[in-house]
């Protein structure tokens, strides 16, 4: 009984102690002091809070939304979704050694992923070593994907349904930056575990890079022993904007096992270009990403799985009102639009020489209200035209989406 009482008192006191933490003790840890931010900095360019002298800083973001979508007259009705709840933990282990991790819960607890968990060593601004679970720097969205940063409820189709955002793997790499007046030049290069054969054997019935995300073993072992190379170069000018060129490639199939040859080595190659800028005077933010995917699909397999894919998106965000609103000092109301296109199967049927379709167009006009820069309330109207492999009349999907997202 005494023990129980003691335990109760300890818990009660501990609770009181936490409740009385002075907010002044919560402080944002030092962030990357780079003068100009790049997409590659997104992983650390997040709000963190540190309690007193605790060696770790905490952060995260949440995304919840409502949608009413329908396709060709059929609808699933009103849907409420807890899309993401993400926790960040970072730690400055020593001067120029830091650790950051990102743990994400998607759709409640349907998917739980460690999206990032890396130790960075800075030897020189031009030479940093990173090891752990890294986000492969293909395109810009994969590295810069936090919900509160975007005016749209859904992530770009090309980024999640063609490129496999968020795509992270265990590996090592180097990165660095060089500043010259108004310019910054940067590079990243990683060797990680990679894809597997599910990219051409999946329930999506198309070449689908995100299928490999389901392979949890990739954090323990490589599917085929061949590393995936991902590299990116980026440059930014304070007046012009940021341009990124990236590549990801490697062998995806199990070509041998136990010393026995199972198949020839089959590669996949992904190229991406991304660009973002803010137009002077108008303050219009423009963000573009486009990618090309090439996969060595066996000629004797089905044409359902394409060898070539391409797609991308452009976001245009126009601030309409920038002034205190409803008591929020830095409130902004934006109008935005996203245009998207993905072709999952670029090619021609061998039987008819006709074009293979399997593509989607999408337009998403949006309104977003940011009471603070780290929080967004957004209202989207989505309209998709999706054509099947054969090029039959497009299926139309449309409807409203409403969501909130914030860092915390």
């Amino acid at each position: 009984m005494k023990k129980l009482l003691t335990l109760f008192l300890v818990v009660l006191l501990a609770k009181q102690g936490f409740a009385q933490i002075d907010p002044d003790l919560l402080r944002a840890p030092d962030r990357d002091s780079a003068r100009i931010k790049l997409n590659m900095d997104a992983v650390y360019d997040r709000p963190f809070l540190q309690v007193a002298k605790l060696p770790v800083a905490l952060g995260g973001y949440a995304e919840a939304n409502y949608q009413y979508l329908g396709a060709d007259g059929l609808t699933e009705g009103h849907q409420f979704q807890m899309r993401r709840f993400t926790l960040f933990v970072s730690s400055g282990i020593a001067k120029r050694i830091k650790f950051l991790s990102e743990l994400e819960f998607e759709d409640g607890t349907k998917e739980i992923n460690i999206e990032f968990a890396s130790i960075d060593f800075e030897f020189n601004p031009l030479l940093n070593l990173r090891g752990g679970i890294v986000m492969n720097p293909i395109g810009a969205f994969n590295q810069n994907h936090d919900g509160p940063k975007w005016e749209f409820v859904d992530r770009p189709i090309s980024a999640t349904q063609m490129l496999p955002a968020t795509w992270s793997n265990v590996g090592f790499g180097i990165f660095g930056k060089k500043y010259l007046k108004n310019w910054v030049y940067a590079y990243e290069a990683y060797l990680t575990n990679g894809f597997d054969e599910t990219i051409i054997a999946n329930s999506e019935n198309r070449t689908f890079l995100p299928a490999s995300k389901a392979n949890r073993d990739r954090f323990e072992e490589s599917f085929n022993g061949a590393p995936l190379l991902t590299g990116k170069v980026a440059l930014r000018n304070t007046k012009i904007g940021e341009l990124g060129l990236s590549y990801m490639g490697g062998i995806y199939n199990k070509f041998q096992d136990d010393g026995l040859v199972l198949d020839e080595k089959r590669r996949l190659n992904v190229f991406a270009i991304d660009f973002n800028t803010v137009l002077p005077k108008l303050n219009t933010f423009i963000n573009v990403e486009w990618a090309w995917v090439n996969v060595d699909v066996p000629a004797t397999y089905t044409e359902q799985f394409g060898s070539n894919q391409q797609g991308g998106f452009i976001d245009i965000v126009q601030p309409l009102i920038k002034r205190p609103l409803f008591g929020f000092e830095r409130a902004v109301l934006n109008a935005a639009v996203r245009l998207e296109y993905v072709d999952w199967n670029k090619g021609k049927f061998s039987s008819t020489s006709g074009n293979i379709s399997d593509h989607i167009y999408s337009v998403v006009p949006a309104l977003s209200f940011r009471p603070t820069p780290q929080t967004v309330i957004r209202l989207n109207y989505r309209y998709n035209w999706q054509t099947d492999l054969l090029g039959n009349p497009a299926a139309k999907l449309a409807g409203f989406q409403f969501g909130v997202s914030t860092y915390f």
Partner: protein
Amino acid sequence: MKNKLMILLIITCLIGIGTSCEKTIPDAPADDEILDGPIEGLTPEQNRIFLNGDVAFNGDVFSSANGLGPMFVANSCGSCHAGDGKGHPFTTLTRFGQSDTLGNKFLLLGGPQLQNRAIPGFQPEKIPAGATFSNFTPPANTGLGFFEAISDASIMALADANDADGDGISGRPNWINITQYSQIRPGTIIRNGKYIGRFGKKASVYDLLQQTANAYSQDMGVNSTYEHYSTYDNQEIDPEISNQKVLDVVFYLKTLKAPIQRDQNNADVIAGKQVFLNISCGKCHTPQLQTGPSNIAALANKSFAPYTDFLLHDMGPALDDKYTEGTAMTPEWRTPALWGLGLSKNSQGGGYHLLHDGRAKTIDQAILTHGGEAEQSKNKFQQLPSNEKAKLIKFLESL
């Protein structure tokens, strides 16, 4: 003041969106513009089974992980039958090995169907030397329950094997052997131990269970307890799909609605139908039939308009691939149903791929390829004035 106005605007917007949700989604296509959907009159429990079958038919995709192949033609039902309509040449299948009524001599060499694709690391099948073959474009699967529910007696009533009426048309059933798992229909007519086939281009399949189990096995390399010999090495293997799933798909196929004719009151369509009858197309493409009893009430004793007589007809040398099935001769084909013809373009990628192998790219071409028992009708078609031809085509496109 500005804030109050904005709050008012936001509330008005939210109420507007909330009350008009359904108007913001794209309209459903008209029922007569699509082929999928159930027949009218299913019970709620039948609707559930229909939906299960729909998911299996249109949603299940097979890969090496869940039974595909190793050799196959397609990896899902929907790959061949987009929107439940006619298929595209990219999933055309090839049958080989039988050139007379005595059976297929190439069964031990991979017959009767070619699996022209293979999962990575395997090689697809090739047609053995000396085997004749025919290419089959996937048919539409709508209204198949009506096909199943018509009685053998009704089919026999249309037959005229010896052309007793002297019209040059001599339809006859394809008398076939059935599988061990086929469920014999009440009123089935048996002749010399053989049964009337009604499904397939050559009418070589007895029922939808055989058609479905066979498609899983021969088209996708997915074995069931019904068809349990691998197409890869002819060995008996464990089932890769449950009986329940096969039966759900059979039920789905049975209860898919019949295509609905469009523009039925259009004067040209009405005139076109008259031309169709005048040049004797309707002698094989029988406009109206009646189902018999069925354990699915919505299919029992119903009138339907398939434009087929389920009989074999000699279609002449142009359509003789020197390959056959059952007791059909090589130039004989089961009259294909014409219902849904006008919607074929919507499932074949925007263009027609007609006749058994998709060779005809227009309805006109398909008619002109007819021969044999259809020679007279073809000649009459050729002699039609262009406006009557146009009305005939318009009628066919309304189906």
